[in-house]
């Protein structure tokens, strides 16, 4: 588990992120609430998980991002608020 020290960072275990709910602090195009729909396995088993697929609840738009970006509390808040 990666731990980032700042108070602006959440601590997360990437393996437990699937179906977790997230709220974008600065929503774009009315997309505010998201879910992690997939945790992408690394290409090599010895590598760490790097990417997750997010899906916007409203539009179902999906995109891949680094899971560690979710730890930035200035951009993402856990849960739907």
């Amino acid at each position, binding site marked *: 588990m990666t731990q980032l020290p700042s108070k602006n960072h959440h601590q997360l275990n990437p393996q437990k992120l699937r*179906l977790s709910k997230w709220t974008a602090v600065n929503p774009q195009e009315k997309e505010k609430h998201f879910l992690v729909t997939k945790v992408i396995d690394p290409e090599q088993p010895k590598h760490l998980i790097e990417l997750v697929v997010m899906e916007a609840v*409203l*539009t179902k*738009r*999906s*995109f891949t991002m680094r899971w560690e*970006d979710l730890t930035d509390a200035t951009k993402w808040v856990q849960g739907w608020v």
Partner: protein
Amino acid sequence: MATVSIGPHLIKNGMRGLAAPELEHTGYTLELSSDEFVLNASIYRQIRSWQPTKILIDDFFVQFDPVPFRLTPASEIREKDSAIGALVSLDAVLCSLYIKHEVKRPIISLLQELRNDLPLNHCSYPRIENGSQMIREDLGNLGFEVVGFFPYGRTITVQFGWVFPQDRLEANSKLCLYAGSIEFKPRPDRTLGKGAWRPPLEVTVSYLLADWLESKAKKGVLSEMGVQAAVDNFKWTKVSLLTNTEAAKARIDFVRDHPELHNNHQSLAKALKDAELYSDTMEIYAIKKQVLKLIEKAKAQ
């Protein structure tokens, strides 16, 4: 696994008006019968107070209690409370039914009936001009079209829709159902690469449509026009035109050329991003984690 041999289909129930605040009777009941269970559930429409005339497929709900089979775990996000009890979205129920049980009636036949009987008038991804020509012809003949492009960092996601048969020949009809997407990571030679399917979460009929599309698209999904449109919609930046090896070398060269930033990792990370040597979606903190190694390599060469 049960076998559903009768339905699902819609039956008129004569119910009209409000069933609860912001919840309207549609006048239809969803019915089905299998060797293990039967379902008979009134269908309601959620009225969005801020957009009361906009009606999407996920605005239709049934009461949770009569649903006699287990829903997919993710369906809890499509449940809601109301004055008449707990509700769950109609398309979450249908998605779970078709995933978990053998249903004789094809989903597209049911969707065609829903389009006739329920007042759908809006969708997340309306049809786009030439969308039907951007997909392989055999997939287009099944009703699939390209409905959007979403460039994000080093990827471009091509989004698909499924058009109801009733709407296919209507030039002005923009209505369709989302049918999943493919995420491509374009290569420096301006080709799209293989792409990865990105099905929606298993809580909507969109999941079923995406699954069907993927099963039919083993030989690829986009037409020549679709490939070109995807390439044109991608944001080609400096880093996207470099191979991984070239990008790594360019970063080291940049770091070597800027010794004044070696003691300020934050500024160096920002400068690398500003120089388009990382994707625009890469956060500074993530670049910063690589900076020390880049400095070591720059000094070693």
